[in-house]
């Protein structure tokens, strides 16, 4: 869609990417040639329940990786863990993760973001009593004016401020929020908040952006144009890791897909391979995921039962897992 000028990374070319991902080992947790994020042995338990238990995961630099999995699989918790918003239960028993060669085991959330790994929240966090543009400008990194002492001297940061604002304007236009520039973020609609959340994260020019269901609640046409934007960012060299339940989105832009279930990494592969994996279909996509629901034939008891079974399957393993946990 949006034909952004393609930056000269080797990965801008779809063919190159395909060639690259074709070479990846499709086992869960397999090594990548140039991982930007490497995660080892992250476990997070709540009470007796294990929400996340990822043995090993590598995220390839410069690609768009999708993280999918049933509800409650632990995707958000995983995001929280690696971005420093939560601490793994296994912190003392050898949990390691590193980003761009830098160890993040004990790094605070803000340092993680400073290191270039920026995330968005599934349940949005708009800064209500600030305007949209202020929200955006907060996203920019390394602002001289954010230093207590320099802040008092306008000339020191005036120029930078202008540049940041220009950049923010550009993003706002793309995210269809420009008209709302001077409105309080608290007055945005649900979808607009999602958009703002994403746009604000992009303000910081991250090396890797982690989006938690960015398109949930965003209208389809806009989703489409935003995906174009994300792709162009990837083409400029940004790494993207995102959680999404909309399979069209996943198919459309992801170069690589990782599947989580009951806290574990259960499959990896290209979108097509993963989505034709019967286990994934069973427990996640459902047999009807690309049939037309408008057909009342589907409302028969059998069909509903079938779906219910699939849902049950989605939960089953997790339950088993919990029980195992309980027995232990």
């Amino acid at each position, binding site marked *: 869609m949006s034909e952004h000028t393609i930056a000269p990374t080797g990965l801008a070319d779809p063919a190159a990417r395909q060639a690259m991902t074709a070479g990846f080992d499709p086992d869960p947790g397999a090594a990548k040639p140039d991982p930007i994020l490497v995660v080892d042995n992250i476990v997070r338990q709540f009470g007796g329940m294990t929400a996340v238990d990822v043995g090993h995961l590598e995220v390839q630099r410069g690609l768009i990786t999708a993280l999918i999995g049933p*509800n409650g699989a632990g995707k958000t918790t995983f995001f929280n863990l690696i971005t420093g918003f939560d601490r793994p239960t296994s912190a003392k028993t050898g949990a390691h993760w590193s980003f761009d060669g830098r160890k993040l085991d004990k790094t605070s959330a803000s340092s993680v973001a400073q290191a270039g790994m920026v995330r968005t929240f599934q349940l949005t966090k708009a800064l209500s009593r600030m305007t949209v543009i202020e929200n955006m400008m907060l996203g920019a990194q390394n602002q001289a004016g954010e230093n207590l002492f320099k802040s008092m001297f306008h000339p020191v940061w005036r120029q930078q401020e202008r540049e940041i604002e220009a950049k923010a304007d550009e993003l706002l236009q793309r995210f269809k929020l420009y008209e709302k520039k001077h409105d309080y973020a608290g007055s945005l*609609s649900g979808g607009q908040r999602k958009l703002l959340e994403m746009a604000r994260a992009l303000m910081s020019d991250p090396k890797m952006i982690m989006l938690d269901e960015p398109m949930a609640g965003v209208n*389809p*046409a806009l989703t489409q144009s935003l995906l174009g934007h994300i792709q162009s960012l990837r083409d400029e060299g940004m790494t993207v890791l995102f959680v999404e*339940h909309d399979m069209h989105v996943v198919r459309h832009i992801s170069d690589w897909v990782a599947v989580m279930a009951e806290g574990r990494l259960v499959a990896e592969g290209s979108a097509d391979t993963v989505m034709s994996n019967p286990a994934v279909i069973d427990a996640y996509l459902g047999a009807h995921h690309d049939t037309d*629901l*408008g057909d009342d034939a589907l409302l028969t008891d059998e069909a509903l039962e079938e779906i219910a079974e699939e*849902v049950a399957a989605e939960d089953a393993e997790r339950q088993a897992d919990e029980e195992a946990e309980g027995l232990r």
Partner: protein
Amino acid sequence: MTSLQKDEPVTDTRKPVVEAKDVVAGYIPGVNILNGCSLVAYPGEMIGIIGPNGAGKSTLLKAMFGLVKVHSGTVMLGERDITNLRTNQLVEMGVGFVPQTNNVFPSLSIEENLRMGLYLRPKKARERLAAMWDLFPVLHDRRNQSAGALSGGERQSLAMARALMMEPSVLLLDEPSAGLSPVRQDETFLRTRRINKTGVCVVMVEQNARRCLQICDRGYVLDQGRDAYSGTGRELANDPKVIELYLGTLAKDVDEERDSH
């Protein structure tokens, strides 16, 4: 490919169940979000509302449900004028609502959340709870956990279950499928449809537009606080204007691409 323009008179002899007539509403005095928005749902109908972000879909639902002040226009429930009635009165009349955000009580346990759905008829709690545990086994397993710990999707299921507890006669849903895994989305749509078939009138706002239009009897496209288009689900889904403005071609492209493989 007939797209019904807003002002085109729709003659229908049935008596509407819910009807919003030229509703003008907004959050701040002087700033109207809805500028004369109309919507009608007949008995047994399932209505889908779609539209760009910020179009006023949630606001319309909230205005119908008494959460946003209606400045002019009326909202009718059957014969009754329910404009600006208090929310809890509407619940007594059998209207159920699932908000888009903040739709659970985070510090109450899951079971208590569900019980809140039946606040007005506590006697039926046991029976309805059993029914919900059947529909959402995950929730049953964790019924004593506080809802605040749930993942986004789990919350959404809980919110839905809470609304179903009360067996409403009109159900207003604001993006019930957001955040759900695909199979659960399907399940949600079908379940809603099934409930609808039992005579419950459903009005749902959705961004999962294609599915929504597939399953709904009629749909409305909202834009800038007005009902810009309306028609049957299939009409709208294939209307090029709607596609261009709103639906986009992503799903189609992707599906085609996949089929060509």
